[in-house]
């Protein structure tokens, strides 16, 4: 395709979401898309900045958005939480002129309305990529029953994320079907896994995760598919019934590319038996 995008790795790219980033990079490279990492990126503030100070949260995210505007290309953000924060800052600057001018001056950039914030689903679920993705499938995921779990940050608020449907999003479902998987409809696509609660209240997080996994098991899913590092961590760590995989790991499996055996070992619930 020969497309080039700016790339915001986010803090989890070197830690808890390492297999997500490796799988995503392998898939993106196979599709002929080039990513250029923003050299100066900093943490978006995650949930912590806005919990303590909205202006700190906006400042950290606006700085990163500004760095992307300096490069002049759409910014690809694999981490759902980072995407949510940067998309929120983009939204503020797009529609609030006073805030835009203040932040442009503080961060030293000019806001270009053409530059967009993209989640990894935004990048890879584009209609025009479907033929290329289908062409790359070497081993269709035949017989693999999946439920797609979207969580919060790439879904809500719809005005900011531009999601197709905030109660029943379908873009990951469509991608999984294109890989040959059997996609099952289920009830917890956009339920919250607890997010940061995973670090402060294990018991409540387990309760939220168990509800999600109960529904996935009732739907007879073999695994749960996500695009969010925090969803993956919470759902994987807090139960022992169901493997949870990133959607790009399943793309890499279908394409038969990347160091998949090593990625499977990064999960708490080993998914290697599925393939």
């Amino acid at each position, binding site marked *: 395709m020969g497309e080039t995008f700016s790339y915001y790795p986010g803090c989890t790219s070197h830690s808890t979401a390492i297999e997500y980033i490796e799988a995503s990079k392998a898939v993106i490279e196979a599709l002929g898309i080039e990513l250029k990492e923003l050299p100066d990126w*900093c943490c978006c503030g995650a949930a*912590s*900045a806005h919990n303590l*100070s*909205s202006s*700190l949260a906006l400042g950290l995210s606006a700085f990163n958005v500004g760095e992307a505007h300096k490069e002049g290309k759409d910014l690809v953000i694999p981490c759902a939480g980072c995407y949510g924060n940067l998309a929120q800052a983009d939204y503020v600057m797009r529609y609030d002129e006073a805030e835009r001018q203040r932040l442009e001056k503080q961060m030293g950039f000019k806001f270009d309305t053409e530059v967009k914030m993209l989640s990894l689903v935004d990048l890879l679920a584009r209609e025009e990529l479907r033929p290329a993705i289908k062409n790359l499938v070497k081993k269709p995921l035949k017989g693999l029953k999946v439920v797609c779990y979207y969580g919060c940050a790439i879904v809500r608020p719809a005005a900011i994320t531009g999601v197709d449907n905030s109660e029943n999003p379908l873009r990951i479902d469509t991608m999984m079907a294109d890989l040959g998987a059997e996609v099952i409809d289920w009830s917890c696509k956009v339920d*919250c896994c607890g997010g*940061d609660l995973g670090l402060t*209240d294990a018991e409540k997080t387990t309760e939220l995760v168990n509800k999600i996994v109960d529904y996935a098991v009732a739907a007879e899913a073999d695994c749960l598919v996500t695009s969010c590092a925090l969803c993956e961590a919470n759902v994987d760590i807090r139960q022992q019934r169901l493997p949870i995989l990133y959607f790009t790991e399943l793309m890499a499996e279908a394409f038969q590319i990347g160091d998949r055996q090593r990625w499977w070992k990064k999960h708490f619930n080993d998914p290697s038996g599925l393939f």
Partner: protein
Amino acid sequence: MAENLLQKVVAESGQPIDLCYQCRKCSVGCPMVEEFDFPPNMVMRMVQLGMKDELLKSKAIWMCISCETCGSRCPNEIRIAPVMDSLRAQCLEEGIAPADPVTVALHSAFIESIKTFGRVHEATMLMNYKWKSKNFTSDLDVGIKLFLKGKIPLMPKKSENMAKIKEIFQEAGK
């Protein structure tokens, strides 16, 4: 007093709180409502009525995990998550003891890590969080497993532009 709280929250959150007519859709869909002392619809009414003291001391403001389910379903398009952000910030600004100090310990440790490295370094952030919350044993097994899986790097990776990050923190008064 009543006007002050409502005006401040509206200004900080940008949300049309006066449009809330108590349909309770927010509370019905809230995954955390069982942990709240006041359900989200009641928080909205309390903001309208200026019940500042009760709100800033409440558990509800710290139990909200900003999943945005409520805001997404509100018929008046009021996002409650930024309203909670405003109330949390006011609680800390006014020096009121937060009803859930563990959550504050986590977020404080997290932003201190950003302030130091520009990016989060999980190992030192988690130690700082454990120190602040005085809870050293919970989820130790999870932490060890994550470390063994190579998911908690020992060495921090600093941002290239620490001067800007310092400026952003200063600007936000943090």
